[in-house]
């Protein structure tokens, strides 16, 4: 928990500010990083459009693109994106084999864009 009583510039409690600030810290340390963003949702989805998950080369992560259902698959794709530099557009839904495997329990479909930070 961030210290609410700190004077001066107060911290932002917007998830994305905390996530992007973490990405910037990783980059300042010279670490590879990738960012995943929910770009579309259909039906019941755990996180709204714009939600983000950042991953570094060691697998450290901050944020989320679902309620934990597809993060594992997204992290794997993020590592591939870090390696080859190519952006990826992923779709997870009930009919998707991988989502079944990891369990998108809400029954919705989400589209996630994954990109390397460089």
């Amino acid at each position, binding site marked *: 928990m961030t210290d*609410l*009583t700190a004077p001066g510039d107060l911290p*932002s409690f917007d998830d994305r500010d905390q996530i992007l600030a973490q990405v910037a810290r990783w980059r300042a340390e010279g670490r590879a990083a990738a960012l995943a*963003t929910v770009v579309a949702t259909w039906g019941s989805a755990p996180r709204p459009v714009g939600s983000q998950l950042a991953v570094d080369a060691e697998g450290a992560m901050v944020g989320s693109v679902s309620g934990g259902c597809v993060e594992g698959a997204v992290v794997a794709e993020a590592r591939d994106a870090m390696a080859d530099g190519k952006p990826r557009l992923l779709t997870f839904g009930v009919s998707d084999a991988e989502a079944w495997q990891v369990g998108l329990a809400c029954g919705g479909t989400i589209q996630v*864009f994954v990109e390397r*930070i460089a």
Partner: protein
Amino acid sequence: MQDDILSQILKNRAAKRPFVLATNLTTGIQTIFYPSENNDLSSLDEMSREALVADQGRIVETDEGQVFLNVFNPPLRLAVVGAVHIAQPLVQIARLANYDVTVIDPRRAFASAERFPGIALSHDWPDEALVAFRPDRRSAVVTLTHDPKLDDPALVEALKSDAFYIGALGSRKTHGKRLDRLKEAGFSDADCARIHGPVGLSIGAKSPAEIAVSIVAQITAVLREAGSRAKAETPA
């Protein structure tokens, strides 16, 4: 995403500058748009402006393929009139919900940095303070003093604004008298209906923290449900 785009995003956020990050979903090429600062709008500018106003990211079709518009609005704002006991938990809960909070009270002993560490304080008279605060459609105003000479001028200014939420602490009886005064001052029934009073959702709140929870819950309901349900749940 290029490092310089990331760095510009963080700068814009720190400066509370609204923008849209447009990402081509095929190529990954990104552009930052500032539609609220630009009158000569291209089609992507115009679509970015619509996304900013709706505060909702979306995919749009362009000549270069699908583009995702990620909306970055500055935080919502809350003006709290009356640096009373309830204001202390209210400020903290509103901060967690990521509101930029300003506490307004000309009584310096109440609106002190010791009682509200790190929070923007105004010691101007509430009407002047609210004119300076400039409530817009991403702002909420809550009055907590119970004192007509402090609350009423604030409510008058709030009613003249586009604030998406206006709430006033006080019993039903107090609120009835308040509405009588505002109507005498020329406000219509429709104007007065914008004021949520007694403030907060009806959850049987007793302690200052519980009342603060009910207020932030009602502000959230109005924000996210366009008001209808929240209004119906206001104690009549």
